């Protein structure tokens, strides 16, 4: 698609259509271009998986918070000022010795934006969306994560109304660590379930 034309100004058809929609909707008073810029900036620079990592680190450090997160993730996450825009509910799913959790959206690409930012390309692509449900163990192996055969894998299919956050298991050897230090061990993929928390170096 996006060819570079050095001889001429050219909008590719998608860019032109987006501008057309923006013009039409602005003239109708339905959107404010300044507000659009703020939203872009927010999602490009301010919201990302660091938010979710802080939630996980707090749950690891504070049993009362972990309990709250288990019972009412929407409220527990909102208490840290990470609020969903689409009125979606959150559910935290905790990995245990017996069970590993994996999140997908087979419908489209529903994702917990407020805690993880926008989804990676592979999360939105058809192979992951179709195969995570059919063959989760195989998918995890392709991510370099081989789980013991007796470990159950539970797959959670997100919807527009309900999004999931995986709480990975706290790595051994991190007793007494601060929440900030713990958060560095929590990757985006660990909160989708395609990885584990990092081991302390």
């Amino acid at each position: 698609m996006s060819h570079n034309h050095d001889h001429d100004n050219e909008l590719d058809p998608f860019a032109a259509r987006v501008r057309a929609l923006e013009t039409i909707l602005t003239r109708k008073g339905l959107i404010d271009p300044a507000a659009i810029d703020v939203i872009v900036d927010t999602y490009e620079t301010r919201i990302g998986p660091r938010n979710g990592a802080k939630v996980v680190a707090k749950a690891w450090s504070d049993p009362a918070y972990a309990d709250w997160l288990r019972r009412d993730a929407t409220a527990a996450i909102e208490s840290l000022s990470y609020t969903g825009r689409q009125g979606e509910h959150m559910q935290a799913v905790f990995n245990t010795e017996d069970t590993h959790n994996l999140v997908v959206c087979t419908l489209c690409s529903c994702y917990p934006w407020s805690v993880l930012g926008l989804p990676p390309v592979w999360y939105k692509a058809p192979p992951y969306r179709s195969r995570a449900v059919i063959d989760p163990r195989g998918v995890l192996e392709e991510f370099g994560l081989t789980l013991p055969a007796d470990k159950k894998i539970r797959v959670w299919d997100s919807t527009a109304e309900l999004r999931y956050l995986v709480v990975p298991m706290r790595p051994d050897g991190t007793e007494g660590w601060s929440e900030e230090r713990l958060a560095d061990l929590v990757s985006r993929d660990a909160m989708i379930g395609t990885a584990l928390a990092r081991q302390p170096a």
Partner: protein
Amino acid sequence: MSRREANDHAADLPLSVDAPVFAEPWQAEAFAMTVALHDKGLFSWGEWAQALSSQVKGPGAAADGHDYYEHWLVALESLLVSKGLTARADVDAMAEAWERAAHATPHGKPILLENDPRPIR
């Protein structure tokens, strides 16, 4: 099911490539417009998810997901048309106006709709 015996359409999961969330500015704008219109109450998020799903679940969706925002844009337009907020012909005409404006804009200058030599009203 082994992935190795699947055909090329079920390509490898694009694991190692962690592209930026938006590959081009228009993708970010299409995304932000959707969020803004939802904030204004013009559609529910469930309605949006359904509109997007019907595009990205189509047989034409690329396995590597590179065309995701193209589907997003088609979904947004379709939802706006179905809500009576705009008409396809109006978007077509306005998109052509933007393309004419781009051609008429000297290289290196910002592309403005005012540069369209045949402005529409």
